[in-house]
């Protein structure tokens, strides 16, 4: 089956003050229809820019390399116009900040209807009626009334529901949710994530869920890609990854590495800091923090290789069971 989205060797450089800063360095991942791929990693590792690169929403000073295939169709060779027409129709995105992501000058219904008018050619009235239906589907009570309200009259959770309705209105093949619940209360978080799951089941949309919360990953993701400093460290089925991490960084995140702190301390349990992207380590970017580092790790970056069927890891020392066994 052709994956809904396949990203291969994605690179991204930002031109700044006459120099180029490489923030993504050969990122690859894929997600199938009706599945959720979680992208996890510490703040600044490139989750958002990778999402924006797929959407084609990066600023002018960005240069993207590699392949981005949406349902088998290569996006990087499309014209701007062709790219634009895919946004909102074939792929959609929701963002971290529901409070500021909606336009304060237009009603919720208008903003959902706009996508329908553009991509499905509905007239104003039909689009608004469909928008109300969408708002109802994302469980906004009294949708017809809410559709006529402005964002400032809606709560944060409600606004994120509006964003989801807007994103899914045209039944896209891919929905990217960039930390969609980070700005919300815990109870609202759970509701929004449950809604995303439900919508995914109903529409068969592939979902990329960007998060730094491993609890969210465990409950909502089918697949997980772990990012570190602009690269993919590991990708596997969620259950596999939690049971048998094959990258020391993932193991560190899970608090499973020997000699580290309690399970659940997560990010804090890895010593050291994220490398400076202006001068990244020559070999494995995690090497300076890695408890299992060997000379080969410093010399050359490890490729993302299959260590078990469907389980990819970019680590010279994978599979880790022997290493972990020795250390324990």
């Amino acid at each position, binding site marked *: 089956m052709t994956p809904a989205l396949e990203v291969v060797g994605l690179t991204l450089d930002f031109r700044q003050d006459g120099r180029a800063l490489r923030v993504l360095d050969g990122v690859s991942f894929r997600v199938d229809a009706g599945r959720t791929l979680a992208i996890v990693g510490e703040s600044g590792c490139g989750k958002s820019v990778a999402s924006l690169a797929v*959407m084609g*929403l990066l600023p002018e000073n960005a240069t993207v390399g590699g392949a981005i295939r949406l349902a088998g169709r290569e996006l990087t060779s499309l014209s701007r116009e062709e790219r634009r027409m895919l946004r*909102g129709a074939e792929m959609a995105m929701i963002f971290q900040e529901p409070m500021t*992501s909606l336009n304060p000058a237009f009603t919720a219904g208008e903003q959902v209807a706009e996508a329908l008018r553009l991509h499905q050619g509905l007239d104003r009235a039909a689009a608004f009626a469909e928008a109300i239906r969408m708002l109802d589907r994302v469980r906004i009570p009294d949708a017809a009334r809410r559709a006529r309200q402005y964002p*400032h009259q809606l709560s944060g959770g409600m606004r994120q529901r509006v964003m989801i309705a807007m994103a899914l209105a045209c039944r896209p093949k891919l929905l990217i949710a960039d930390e969609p619940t980070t700005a919300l209360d815990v109870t609202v978080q759970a509701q929004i994530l449950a809604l995303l799951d439900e919508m995914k089941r109903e529409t068969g949309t592939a979902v990329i869920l960007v998060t730094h919360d491993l609890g969210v990953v465990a409950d909502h993701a089918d697949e997980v890609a772990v990012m570190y400093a602009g690269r993919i460290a590991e990708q596997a089925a969620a259950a596999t990854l939690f049971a048998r991490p094959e990258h020391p960084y993932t193991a560190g995140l899970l608090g499973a590495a020997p000699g580290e702190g309690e399970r659940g301390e997560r990010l804090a349990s890895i010593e050291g800091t994220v490398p400076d992207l202006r001068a990244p380590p020559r070999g494995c970017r995690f090497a300076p923090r890695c408890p299992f580092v060997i000379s080969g790790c410093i010399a050359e970056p490890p490729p993302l290789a299959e260590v078990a069927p469907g389980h990819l890891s970019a680590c010279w020392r994978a599979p880790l069971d022997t290493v972990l066994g020795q250390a324990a």
Partner: protein
Amino acid sequence: MGIWLLRRVGQVIPTLLILSILIFGLQQLMPGDPAVILAGEERGDPAVLAQIRAELGLDRPVHEQYVIWMSKVLTGDFGFSWRIRVPVSELILAKLPVTFQLASMAFVIAILIGVPLGILSAVRKDTPADWAANGVALFGISTPNFWLGIMMILLFSVELGWLPPSGYVPLFEDPAQSLATTIMPAFVLGTGVASVLMRHTRAAMLTALSQDYVRTARAKGLRERVVVWKHALRNALIPVVTLGAIEFGRLLAGAVLTEQIFTIPGFGKLIVDAVFNRDYPVVQGVVLATALIFVVLSLIADLLYMAINPRLRNA
């Protein structure tokens, strides 16, 4: 809403009162005795001067004069022009439409130049188009109106003979000729405001374009044109509209000089003549009327601000 309006009007009354005292007080400092000027040929005759003073109430103490004037103003009576014996309110109503036409045309010109230029320079930030737009704005702000006015008269009236160099034809008498006589002064008057509007539009657009909702609009697949002219502009206009209403008031005030250059018989000419003739009731009336217009404009600005800002409308 009603309470808000009342409060706004309440705030305005002390302002107008203080202003009226200022006008009254300051004109006492003007050199020249109005009685002497009004006496004309007979200015040497003390009996005539005394009679004039008594007639106009100039023989009374200043504060008494003020109270008499003010109590009349409160009933809507602005008094008579000392010089031409016509009610001041009549003079104001006759001249105001002229200045209003001039200011309105200048305002339209300012909007037509300033807002698109501001949008363009925001969208094309740090490109030659942006630099050019900023250059135009700098030119508009720094060019003195009298110089620009004279240059335009030299070019379009003297050299090319396209437009009359001066004079005024009322709008309802002969619209085409009326526009011909006012287009140059309106342009001269509008340039400064166009620059101000351009800069504010640019700043507001830059702010709007960096907002998250603009990214959302792009994520929807909207055309860049729609993103800019609908999603960003709609928000950017909120502060610009408020500013626009205030700037319109400045245009009315700024018309004074421009009317002199193009000899247009509006408010400007009225007040300049009145000052030279020490025609105090006219001076007081015109200044007070101008202040009142300012107050009404800033009220309109606030109402507009509420009207286009959903956050306030439904608050």
